[in-house]
């Protein structure tokens, strides 16, 4: 609209108004009441006489087209109209997929309240305590438990030999619990060389997370599992504050039942860390055993010599040596028993932490209404996040598209008007 048009909007000459009123009266068929009306009536009649009439062929063609709904002229393959009702299931499905993806991503990244950064099977040469403290030599969750090594002989063995790991435990992706499947040892873990049985000291550092109020249940479960596999609780310390707290256990279980114990303990809560170490003590065991055999042989020789001694000096000297030999035998037996105990009894350091926002698996209780409310809140949070992210992406895009449409319409209108000006 140019400036003249805008002026036309606000001011109009009374004479113009009168002539327009006369024109409207003439067009309405009113009889002329003055010279102006008569002139306009004649003009209208003459102009209408110049109106070209629609050709008969066009009239007939249009009649047919209107009668059959213009079907014959253009048959298009029309896509179904996208209404909100039809789009709703699709949009709902897309939203569900988006939420599932976000939830899964949250679980994998450990950002969720009920998720855990799960499971590190650690295998290193450090002692159990060092392993628990450091945990630097850890491998991923899907790495399996360490496999006991087979070494060619005691001479080649090292007391601090590290075991290799084989995959056996897997983390269910996207599971709300974030638990690992029960630990199961590979067959090779239980297989030792028949020719040269290995003596391996094993230790495990296991950290569990349970929901609030579940600490006592989990602690009881630890004791129950330990006793169930024939072990005992060497040390325990429970610290509780309200519905949260922590408990530390030092367990001793038969090495043969270690895998079973870990598998059962893992079910008591969410496994946040699981470090396992092994130490080959075959060389020490063999060395002490050989020393013990030597000492026994020496004692046998000393006793034989004592029986053949004739002088009091020889007898006193031999008795002194036998006494020393007896002490050496006792010490060696003690060493051997300790080594045997290390090999036969594995140590498990269990830490149980009770935290808010952790949903404990079925072993320690059911899914409570509070858990359901927390999960619902979490779902709402994720849904809101999805909406915000989608809006952040779609709103600018929508604005750009809207601007493009408006500009396109304006341009097309301007070009059409220009076409009329230059016609």
């Amino acid at each position: 609209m140019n400036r003249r048009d805008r002026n036309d909007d606000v001011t109009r000459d009374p004479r113009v108004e009168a002539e327009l009123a006369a024109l409207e009266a003439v067009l309405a068929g009113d009889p002329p009441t003055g010279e102006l009306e008569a002139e306009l009536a004649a003009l209208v009649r003459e102009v209408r006489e110049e109106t070209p009439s629609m050709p008969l062929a066009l009239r007939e063609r249009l009649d047919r087209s209107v009668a059959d709904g213009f079907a014959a002229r253009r048959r298009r393959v029309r896509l179904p109209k996208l209404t909100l009702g039809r789009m709703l299931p699709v949009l709902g499905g897309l939203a569900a997929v988006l939420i599932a993806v976000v939830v899964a991503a949250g679980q994998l990244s450990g950002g969720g309240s009920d998720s855990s950064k799960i499971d590190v099977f650690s295998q290193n040469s450090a002692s159990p305590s060092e392993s628990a403290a450091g945990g630097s030599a850890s491998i991923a969750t899907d790495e399996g438990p360490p496999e006991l090594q087979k070494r060619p002989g005691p001479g080649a063995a090292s007391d601090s030999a590290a075991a290799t790991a084989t995959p056996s435990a897997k983390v269910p992706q996207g599971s709300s619990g974030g638990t690992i499947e029960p630990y199961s040892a590979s067959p090779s873990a239980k297989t030792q060389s028949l020719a040269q049985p290995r003596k391996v000291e094993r230790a495990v550092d296991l950290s569990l997370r349970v929901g609030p109020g579940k600490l006592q249940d989990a602690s009881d479960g630890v004791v129950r599992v330990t006793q169930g596999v024939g072990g005992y609780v060497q040390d325990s310390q429970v610290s509780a504050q309200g519905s949260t707290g922590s408990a530390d256990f030092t367990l001793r279980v038969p090495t043969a039942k270690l895998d079973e114990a870990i598998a059962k303990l893992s079910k008591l809560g969410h496994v946040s860390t699981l470090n396992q170490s092994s130490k080959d003590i075959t060389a020490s065991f063999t060395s002490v055993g050989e020393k013990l055999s030597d000492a026994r042989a020496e004692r046998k020789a000393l006793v034989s010599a004592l029986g053949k001694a004739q002088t009091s000096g020889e007898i006193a000297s031999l008795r002194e040596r036998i006494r020393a030999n007896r002490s050496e035998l006792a010490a060696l037996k003690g060493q051997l028993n300790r080594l045997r105990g290390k090999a036969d009894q594995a140590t498990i350091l269990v830490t149980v932490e009770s935290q808010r926002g952790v949903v404990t698996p079925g072993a320690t209780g059911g899914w409570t209404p509070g858990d359901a409310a927390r999960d619902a809140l979490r779902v709402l949070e994720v849904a809101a996040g999805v909406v915000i992210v989608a809006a952040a992406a779609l709103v600018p895009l929508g604005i750009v598209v809207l601007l493009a449409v408006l500009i396109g319409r304006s341009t097309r209108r301007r070009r059409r008007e220009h076409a009329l000006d230059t016609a």
Partner: protein
Amino acid sequence: MSETLTMAFAPSHTATFEFEALYRSCADELYGYVVSLVRDRAAAEDVTALAFERAYRRRRRFDPRKGTPRQWLYAIARNAALDELRRRKRTESLLVDPADPDVAEPFAGEDDDADRRATVRAALAGLEPRDRELISLKFHAGLTNAEIAGVLGVSESNAGTRVHRAVTKLREACS
């Protein structure tokens, strides 16, 4: 007539209207309007047919709150005619059509009536396209100023002023 057609359109702005009634009432006038725009009867036939087809296809999108069915139909026809003019302008360097003698050239009559018709025809031909369009919308189609405003996309007051200006030019050319 327009009121009758408006009533034929259901109250809901998405309702189906009586398209055939609209066609019967407007076909001749619409054709004359298109001829006044494109100045070519053959092209006007195609444009008229296209306008009715477009209107039929879009009949469910008609919104009575935005104007009468006639106004809506003429706006469709106007856009189709202007598109035809644009298309013709793009190809005119390749193909120059001779002017339609029935439309462009004044009729050389022998009596006074024939002279008068020739004068009116020449006056119409001499008008600017926009003024000729307004005369057609007002005299041929019989649209109200409000409907003309809706077709042209201007205010009703502005449409009235434009109509007056075009009629004045025509009267001067015919005098």
